[in-house]
């Protein structure tokens, strides 16, 4: 059997919200030959199991459920006649944009693309990654896996639940389990503040009287075959458990919502540079990675709080790919963007100021720690560009800063630093 050879102008890898929006945007802007490859049996990615509402406020000005939000894009994609390969896994990606994909019907396919958009999303951090001691019984699930069992497969993975970590999926699942008649005993968060959106704390925990135990963690898992209980403890300022505060909680399930990791196995295969701060590819103003013609968007680049921002970022990547396919001059990425004091990361990390799309550039960043009042400073090596006061910022809520193209282009700027400095809160301020 000869491997099928395919040539495509643009291949989008991943059919979740990022891949869908990127493919549509590229096609709208004139790329005819677009192929979207998805490993699951349907499009929509993780949105399909997010049956709660709250999606689309920024993009559609209305509140949609995950499947509804996805469906808007899936319908548009189908109407545009964009080619899709479902149940197809990409097992190889090279820097010269050669893809090896595999599925049941076609077997092995070799696809040569002129441009590629990576939209593989992210995966959940596991128990091993955070080193929770104890036994390894059944009943330990990441929040997203539990969500799939309940919302897609129609099964309950447990009845008495303790949740570790206050990530948004965990909070959403606390409510979902409660509505299904299960008992969520508490949510333990090792940090002194929550990692989820405020609205989820209110709507998913407070409304159901589920205790959120800040500065607490799970120090032991009991049960050889199925979880029988967990021991939780308060942690000190160095996040070390305080022995005297240990408390046993009987439960049959431990749900983990302890963070998401961009899924960049393919990116690494293609030698794309990865930013240690985001765990995603280093990208420029149009979401192009360090390999020209390979773009990335959505949670594969950095983990977003809202799908609406994923969509916008994907549209930018789609347009970027269109530009790349039509241009003769290579990008120069002459400005490097540096996260300064108080900033966890910034995306994009590189800018070719002359090629900024839409006459403006958005920077997405996260603070390292919560601050009640902070000064955001954007400075270049040629001088300050922006100074702005922000209130109630926390690591769980992404900060979005818009800079006009003319503030960056034609000034021979080499580097851009974005920092957040805590400012004292004065009474009545």
């Amino acid at each position, binding site marked *: *059997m*000869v*491997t099928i050879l395919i040539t495509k102008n643009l291949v989008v890898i991943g059919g979740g919200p990022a891949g869908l929006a990127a493919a549509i945007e590229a096609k709208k802007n004139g790329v005819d030959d677009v192929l979207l490859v998805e*490993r699951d049996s349907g499009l929509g990615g993780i949105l399909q199991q997010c049956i709660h509402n709250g999606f689309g406020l920024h993009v559609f000005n209305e509140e949609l459920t995950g499947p509804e939000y996805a469906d808007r894009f899936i319908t548009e994609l189908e109407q545009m006649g964009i080619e899709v390969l479902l*149940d197809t*896994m990409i*097992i190889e990606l090279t820097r010269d944009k050669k893809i*090896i994909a*595999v*599925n*049941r*019907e*076609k*077997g*092995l396919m*070799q696809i040569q693309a002129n441009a590629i958009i990576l939209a593989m999303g992210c*995966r*959940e951090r*596991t*128990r*091993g*990654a955070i*080193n929770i*001691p*104890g*036994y*390894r*019984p*059944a009943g330990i699930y*990441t929040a*997203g*896996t539990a969500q*799939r*069992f*309940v919302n*897609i*497969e*129609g*099964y*309950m*993975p447990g*009845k008495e639940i303790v949740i570790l970590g206050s990530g948004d999926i965990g909070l959403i699942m606390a409510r979902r389990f*409660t*509505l*299904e*008649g*299960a*008992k969520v005993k508490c949510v333990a968060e090792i940090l002194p503040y929550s990692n989820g959106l405020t609205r989820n704390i209110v709507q998913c925990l407070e409304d*159901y*009287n589920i205790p959120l135990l800040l500065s607490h963690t799970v*120090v*032991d*898992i009991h049960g*050889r*075959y*199925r979880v029988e209980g967990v021991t939780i403890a308060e942690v000190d300022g160095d996040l070390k*458990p305080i022995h005297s505060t240990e408390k046993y909680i009987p439960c*049959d399930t431990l749900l983990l919502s302890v963070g998401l990791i961009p899924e960049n*196995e393919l990116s*690494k295969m293609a030698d794309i540079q990865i930013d240690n701060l985001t765990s995603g590819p280093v990208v420029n103003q149009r979401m192009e990675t360090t390999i020209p013609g390979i773009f990335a968007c959505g949670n594969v680049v950095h983990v977003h709080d809202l799908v609406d921002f994923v969509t916008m970022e994907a549209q930018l990547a789609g347009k970027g790919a269109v530009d790349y396919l039509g241009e003769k001059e290579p990008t120069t990425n002459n400005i490097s963007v540096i996260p300064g004091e108080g900033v966890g990361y910034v995306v994009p990390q590189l800018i070719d100021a002359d090629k900024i799309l839409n006459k403006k550039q958005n920077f997405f960043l996260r603070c390292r720690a919560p601050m009640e009042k902070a000064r955001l400073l954007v400075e270049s090596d040629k001088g300050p560009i922006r100074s702005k006061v922000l209130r109630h910022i926390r690591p769980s809520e992404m900060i979005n800063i818009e800079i006009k193209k003319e503030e960056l282009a034609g000034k021979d700027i080499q580097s851009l630093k974005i920092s957040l400095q805590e400012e004292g809160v004065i009474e009545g301020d």
Partner: protein
Amino acid sequence: MEDMVIIGAGITGCSIARELSRYDLNITVVEKEEDVACGTSKANSAIVHAGFDAATGTWKAKLNVEGNKLYPALCEELDVPLVMNGSLVVAVTEEEEKALEELLERGKINGVKYLSIIGKDELHAMEPNLSPNARAALNAPTGGLVCPYELTIALAENANQNGVKFLLNAPVIDIEVLEDSSFLVKTPKGSIRSKYVINAAGLFADEISKMAGAEEYSITPRKGEYLIFDKHFGNLVSKAIFPTPTKISKGILVCPTVDGNIFIGPNSNNIEDKNDTSVNPPGIKEIIEGGKKLVPDLPLKNIITSFAGLRAVSNTNDFIIEASKKVRGFINVGGIQSPGLTSAPAIAIMVREILQEQGVTLKEKPDFIPQRPKKVRFRELDNKERSKLIEQNPAFGHVICRCETVTEAEIIDAIKRPVGARSIDAVKRRTRAGMGRCQGGFCSPRVLEIIARELGIDPLEITKKGPDSNMLVARIKEFLQVEGGDNIDN
């Protein structure tokens, strides 16, 4: 009536079962867990030891060296990956450097070949990530790596092909010696009458021996904890790196696995509970500190999982492999701690010889099949071979485990093979689905669905690792119906 009942389906029991399956004997292996390789055999350092460590003159020393020599042919025959990449024992102090000389001498007396001591430069050229304190090492080229549960499963599969029966989920609750001096081995799944009983019950061998009225000895569980790193860091070291050993243990190593991960561990602590395989914070700390002495830059942010295993340490501190003098027909194979994995093929032969001495007639079966059914590892094939496979069976085109590139066809095969998988963990051990960096986050719902479909059972019945470890507890809405619709219990 059976000729042989083997109690325990770990590496020892399965090696013996496979060795004896060459002969015209009726054999049943009885195992308390739901699968083979569920005890010490699934949680150890996975090393084929060269044999310099064990005290000269012990069974451990003799069988280690003999077992080591049998490995290449055995693994070839059973299609089990084996990497004979050598081991290094590293000295970081002057005192330890002297101890290497002793080790070298002991190794030579034990019959280990090609041992040598290498100096700092050669050592660091070989292993660039070693601590700058590493000053010399004992180089043992005959050391190797093998996946212990894969080998145990392969032995069980092949034994089963050759007629050995496996009774799983069947803890032995009593052994009665009948008037004709045959045995009645009682389990909750029924009793089996047998002429001979081979006790390969690992941590519980002392209890089984006592149950049969044979010699009394004690087995102490000695816990070892481990941490495994993401495959991305698979090049951290190229060989098993041991510290200079102490009297009790070979120490905490930094070591590759045959599947391309790196692990650190094990520590070594005597405990009381033979079921306590929990990992504890002091243990994690201990192995990280131990590992750092050899390789200071460990990728601690890329740990994918931790586990603990229990060594079955006998009060003689050596293997106990002998026919009982008290109970005719009862053979003890106990205290098989390290280097038990390496010794297993030699132990099997020794048990066969003991049986011959006991008067068992061994008639070779003309139809003995030495190879187990062909096993496909999709991730290891080239694209041409992959294409060909998918053409033959489209289920090879459906990747279920993304991290380890395991296809639906491989999972179905794991279920349908001899002594097939019945649980999520059993599929994992046979295919590696769920062993990667996401630890089954994506694939476990799919694997569950495939097991349920292939076995024709309700998904609610599917377990992680046998009885009482069900993955799912109810269908949605069931809790609400029970509570009469008044659902939200605030």
